[in-house]
């Protein structure tokens, strides 16, 4: 069980790092084993930043991430290594995860050296083959090849197989299928959904609502670093409450129906009202952007469905 509690991250920005860019503000949710949680947001919403903080690739500004009750930020040395045994990530671009001058097996060899030093060559090979078969790859097709000889889908599966070799409990999947072809992306998606049966918790980060809806049990909708709506996927998609969620759902292109006219919203019309902007740099001396909007309170509208309070009442 991975818990995020009032997690915030601000980057230094502006000239000479004089200002702060609030990328993630007061985000709290948890990832339970055996479930897929999708984190949906447009570009600049801070969704990848959250994934990177969970993987300890970025330090946390305030708030805590706890894994089985232990604060992740405090982990060092052997304890951190044990954390990585249980929490792993897979990222968007499978091509840049491999060193082009080495064979793809190298990602496994490095893992063996780090984590499975005591294992005999034979046992390792059995373990590796089992893991490759679990992601639907034929070992003879992929082992000993270079990255350019394999397709994006195969490379992405290899990375999932690498994560499965460890005893992972949480997998952070950040836009893993955005770069894949329409015909193969669904197979990788099914693979992730199938990991639930192994008791894994998956954090599925995406900007694509249809993918999030397809695969996840829980959904978190993020905008400009703030959670606007979260809860069980069926409730968030079936009964959206926040105007931003409604606008997103109205904008998703569907196969068998046309875009419906957007509800005329207060202020300017059209999707542009919500056009994602990069979080403004709040400068120390001259404040151009003004103070950032306050973080809205989350109100429970029904069992397991939280919505940010909007001025003028929720939708």
């Amino acid at each position: 069980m991975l818990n995020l509690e009032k997690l915030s991250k601000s980057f230094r920005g502006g000239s000479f790092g004089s200002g702060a860019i609030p990328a993630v503000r007061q985000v709290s949710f948890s990832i339970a084993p055996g479930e897929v949680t999708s984190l949906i947001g447009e570009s600049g919403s801070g969704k990848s930043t959250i994934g990177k903080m969970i993987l300890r690739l970025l330090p946390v500004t305030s708030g805590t991430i706890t894994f089985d009750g232990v604060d992740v930020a405090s982990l060092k040395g052997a304890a951190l290594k044990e954390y990585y045994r249980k929490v792993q990530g897979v990222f968007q671009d499978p091509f840049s995860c491999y060193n082009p001058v080495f064979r793809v097996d190298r990602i496994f060899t490095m893992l063996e050296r780090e984590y499975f030093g005591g294992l005999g060559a034979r046992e390792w090979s059995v373990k590796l083959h089992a893991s490759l078969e679990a992601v639907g790859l034929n070992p003879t097709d992929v082992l000993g090849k270079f990255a350019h000889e394999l397709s994006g889908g195969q490379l992405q599966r290899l990375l999932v197989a690498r994560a499965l070799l460890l005893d992972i409990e949480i997998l952070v999947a950040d836009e893993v299928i955005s770069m894949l072809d329409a015909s193969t992306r669904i197979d990788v998606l099914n693979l992730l959904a199938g990991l639930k049966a192994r008791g894994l918790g998956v954090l599925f980060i995406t900007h694509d609502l249809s993918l999030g809806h397809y695969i996840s049990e829980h959904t978190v909708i993020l905008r400009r670093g703030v959670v606007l709506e979260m809860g069980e996927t069926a409730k968030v998609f079936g009964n959206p409450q926040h105007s931003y969620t409604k606008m997103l759902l109205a904008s998703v292109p569907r196969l068998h129906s046309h875009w419906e006219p957007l509800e005329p919203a207060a202020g300017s019309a059209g999707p542009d009202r919500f056009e994602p902007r990069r979080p403004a740099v709040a400068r120390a001396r001259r404040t151009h952007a003004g103070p950032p909007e306050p973080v809205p309170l989350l109100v429970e509208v029904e069992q397991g469905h939280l919505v940010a309070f909007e001025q003028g009442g929720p939708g």
Partner: protein
Amino acid sequence: MSLDVQHLVVAYRTLRGDVRAVDDVSFSVADGEIMGLAGESGCGKSTLGNSLVRLDGRMRVLAGRVLLDGTELPLSDWDAMDEFRFKKISLVPQYSMSALNPTRRIGKMISEVVRSRKIRYKDVLPELERRLRLVGLPTDVLAKYPIELSGGMNQRVVMVLTTLLDPSLLVADEVTSALDVSTQRAVGELLVELRDLGIVTSTIMITHDLSILVQVADSVMVMYAGKVVERAPTATIVDAPRHPYTKLLIASLPEVGVRYAEHVLTGIPGHPPSLLDPPTGCRFADRCPFASAECAVEPPLVELESGHLVACWKAS
């Protein structure tokens, strides 16, 4: 008849031989039509779109001809094509951010572009300002740098610029791909609006996303491994596709409303063939669940019903 492409073959020169990325493709786009061009990556859809506007150094037109409003386009002649580019045919590239010069104010950059076509900036300025207001941008964006605008605003600036001279044909290459859903919608609606206002006569919209074509396009052409496999009105492609590739492609699309827990979608096994040495016969045969002996001969593109063309032995 706005655009008429006849038996076009475009190849990339490589050391190992010619890669025929567009292989004997014929189609036409009517006046006022928005045609969607769909397919997996590497199927030749961008090569086809680019070859109509600008051939890059590695590309060669090996055969075929292209007529625009009855005039043949000199595709292989870079200088002669300059007469058509921007005036008659325009391209909207995928990444608008990198299409705009970051060191120039937008107005200055546009003035340089129109001057290269021997048009005075002052003459087009009133129309330019009118068009900017039309797409919902304030005219003071002309005094700004691209970095001061958001991705969606930049995309609209590029679209106003490329359509400034009322082109007969607009090639929009993956214009909605890297955008968020709300911006995607705004750009898609803008493409339709440009057509409705008569600013652009015909549009080819290249994308791998069939669901956005349902919103925008009048007809869809599906390509596979350099060949046209199916061409039909959009509703027909989605509701009654006849080519196995189109069927499988649509079946693999997750949509809001489809859930893994209830209905598991499947992908298409295998991958497209290498175009360096393409297989004889139907190019989809080795991935096709319906393939049989007759697929060793290449199926012709035949018109099953009016406006619905399919290249498959099993379809008729």
